[in-house]
């Protein structure tokens, strides 16, 4: 699974993208965020305020209950501020 980080999620986690292989029981967006939080203090800090995190699966906005799979591109970012 490919993960992308944008804006302060990139700054806080210290990475722009990475390939990860979460355990099989991580099957939804919400479960992925919880698993990521356990990877270290920088992830716990970055993901602490769930209301401030948006997730896109394969370039489409996703909800916590939406499914994820090993071939997905999952992006984590704060609310957008373009325009």
């Amino acid at each position, binding site marked *: 699974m490919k993960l*992308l980080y*944008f*804006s*302060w999620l990139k*700054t806080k986690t210290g990475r722009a993208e990475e390939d990860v292989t979460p355990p099989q029981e991580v099957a939804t967006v919400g479960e992925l965020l919880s698993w990521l939080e356990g990877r270290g203090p920088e992830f716990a800090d970055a993901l602490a305020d769930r209301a401030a995190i*948006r997730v*896109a699966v394969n*370039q*489409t*906005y996703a*909800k916590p209950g939406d499914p994820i799979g090993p071939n997905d*591109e999952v*992006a984590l*970012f*704060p*609310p*957008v*501020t*373009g*325009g």
Partner: protein
Amino acid sequence: MTVRVQEQDFDVGKELSELTKGNHAIGGLAVFVGLVRDHVGIQGGGGSEISAMTLEHYPAMTDKMLAKIEAEARERWPLEASLVIHRHGRLEPGDRIVMVAAASSHRQAAFEACEFLMDWLKTKAPFWKLEETDKGALWVDARDSDDTAAARWSKRDPDAAE
């Protein structure tokens, strides 16, 4: 609809001339141009000077979303032509950030479609602003008023984040 995400500046007059050229069904053209300000207000008073900003974006997602928003705008309004240009990279005060144009036979459709596209860009399109202020480099917070503006277009929203 023509959509471009680019680093370089654009020429508003030239873009509009090309957009409407030869289409004599167009009676009205509504346009919005967003510029970098040199000062940012903070909710509850105060603010900072801005010396520059950097726009980060997620190109693959932008491309995918623009197809949807185009279909939605054309379903809602009888548009003859439309255009979205959004810049990324480092910009200074006074620089153009974004341009949206919508052309229709009548002005109301043009205005509404232009506002709809801007509201969508502000609340859904994957761009993030990092401002270089006198208090350091700060990621801009999303504004509640932008969500309110976007919400007026629909209760069912296929791209809602939650």
